């Protein structure tokens, strides 16, 4: 495909970037119930509608649970749909979230990640992603504002792909990215349309039409249910490589790509590897560069796809390394370690028995700082040399 023209560069927040991404994909129906820190997404999208930039039907709802049900239903009727939420809002729609994926409704939802209920924390953290691990959605985690915008566009391509037909969450760190204003290149509408055009070439999904009797997701048990679960899991598996393909194609057109399922940074000749996700990756990258200058062979893997878990790509990237450090912005209850660490540890048969260190940091707006990441690299490096190490470290608790 031909390259896209240079888009306008504007200084916008992460929330606005999510709204711009959605606007460029022209959803038929969108809705959202306000919640900190993502309310601005809905405000922006409503503003676009008011300005006549989109003809999206904005449905006013009385809560997040209704929001998810509205977009799921509109998706079953064949529409392109978008919504956004955070934390408590996401938890409040938990049943509807599972319904959406069970219905195989290609909903795209932007999530400004925030700590979940238990302790009232209007602050950033990835615990809400973790609580959605087993809902059957595709979960993408992004690093910066540009990636939010680009990932929302890619999410529509992925969700509505005939081979996938699954809802996608685009996660970005609340407070860190939601309110951070940076320069973002906004693609031209016709280029975004061109990127999404292949969706029109594929067979049409069945859809609900008034007056024509058709049902979806009706009660089923035993073999019918098992078959649907099997198909759902198979579609999730296909989504892994599909995301790589979509990301590559996006790169060819727009000149920006993010590695698909994971982004590897200086991992090729690395002896130790750091695994991060979200906005902390930017900090980690600068620390990796500094440590490289000191002669430490450290690499970085950014986990972009959390569900489906990028097992193959991660195993390839981590195989043959001497030690791995994983930084989580959430906790794995009952395991006393980071959830992403827990999952990477499950890849041991593929990557071999090596020291794996879990770091919990950055909960509830605590910053994942340069000294923190330096410490992680130093400890992982020492573990790689056979020195004794501590498996799990709650970094700020030791300061």
């Amino acid at each position, binding site marked *: 495909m031909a390259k896209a023209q240079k888009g306008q560069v504007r200084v916008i927040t992460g929330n606005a970037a999510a709204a711009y991404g959605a606007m460029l994909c022209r959803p038929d129906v969108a809705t959202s119930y306000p919640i900190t820190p993502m309310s601005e997404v809905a405000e922006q999208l409503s503003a676009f509608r008011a300005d006549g930039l989109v003809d999206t039907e904005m449905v006013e709802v009385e809560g997040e649970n209704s929001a998810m049900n509205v977009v799921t239903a509109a998706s079953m009727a064949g529409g392109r749909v978008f919504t956004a939420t955070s934390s408590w809002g996401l938890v409040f729609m938990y049943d509807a979230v599972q319904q959406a994926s069970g219905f*195989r409704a290609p909903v795209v939802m932007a999530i400004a990640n925030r700590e979940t209920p238990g302790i009232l924390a209007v602050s950033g953290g990835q615990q809400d992603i973790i609580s959605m691990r087993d809902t059957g959605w595709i979960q993408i985690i992004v690093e910066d504002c540009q990636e939010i915008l680009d990932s929302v566009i890619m999410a529509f391509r992925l969700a509505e792909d005939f081979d996938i037909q699954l809802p996608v969450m685009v996660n970005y760190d609340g407070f860190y990215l939601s309110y951070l204003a940076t320069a973002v290149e906004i693609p031209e509408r016709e280029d975004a349309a061109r990127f999404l055009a292949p969706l029109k070439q594929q067979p049409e999904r*069945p859809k609900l039409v008034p007056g024509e009797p*058709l*049902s*979806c*997701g*009706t009660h*089923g048990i*035993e073999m019918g249910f098992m078959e649907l679960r099997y*198909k759902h899991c198979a579609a999730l598996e296909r989504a892994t490589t599909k995301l790589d393909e979509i990301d590559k194609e996006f790169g060819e057109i727009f000149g920006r790509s993010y590695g698909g399922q994971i982004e590897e940074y200086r991992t090729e000749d690395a002896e130790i590897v750091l695994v991060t996700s979200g906005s902390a990756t930017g900090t980690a990258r600068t620390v990796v560069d500094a440590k490289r200058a000191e002669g430490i062979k450290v690499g970085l893997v950014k986990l972009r796809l959390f569900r489906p878990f990028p097992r193959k790509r991660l195993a390839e990237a981590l195989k043959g390394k001497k030690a791995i450090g994983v930084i989580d912005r959430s906790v794995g209850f009952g395991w006393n370690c980071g959830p992403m660490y827990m999952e990477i540890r499950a890849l041991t048969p593929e990557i071999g028995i090596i020291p794996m260190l879990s770091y919990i940091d950055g909960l509830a707006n605590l910053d994942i700082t340069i000294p923190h990441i330096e410490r992680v690299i130093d400890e992982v490096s020492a573990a790689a040399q056979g020195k004794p190490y501590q498996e799990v470290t709650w970094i700020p608790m030791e300061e």
Partner: protein
Amino acid sequence: MVIKHKFILKTENAWSDASEPLLCMDTGSWRTARPVLDKEKCNYCGLCALYCPPQCMKDMGDYYEVDLAYCKGCGVCAKECPRDVISMVPEGEFTDG
């Protein structure tokens, strides 16, 4: 893994236009007691059909017959029948169940 199961559904999700049975459940197998109707005493008032939760009372013109493929044996029909025409007989007494 070799999949031996023949897919019931052509689509990715449970879509149905009701032209063929979808995920049909043999709820009749849940029954522990079966409604037995005395055709002689039945005056075709229709209350059993009205109350039957899964609409298992088939209208036969001048009496009702139970659809045993789906009747779960809840006994609402027997309870509501003003003439006590329906009796709930334990499934163990039948050889076809």
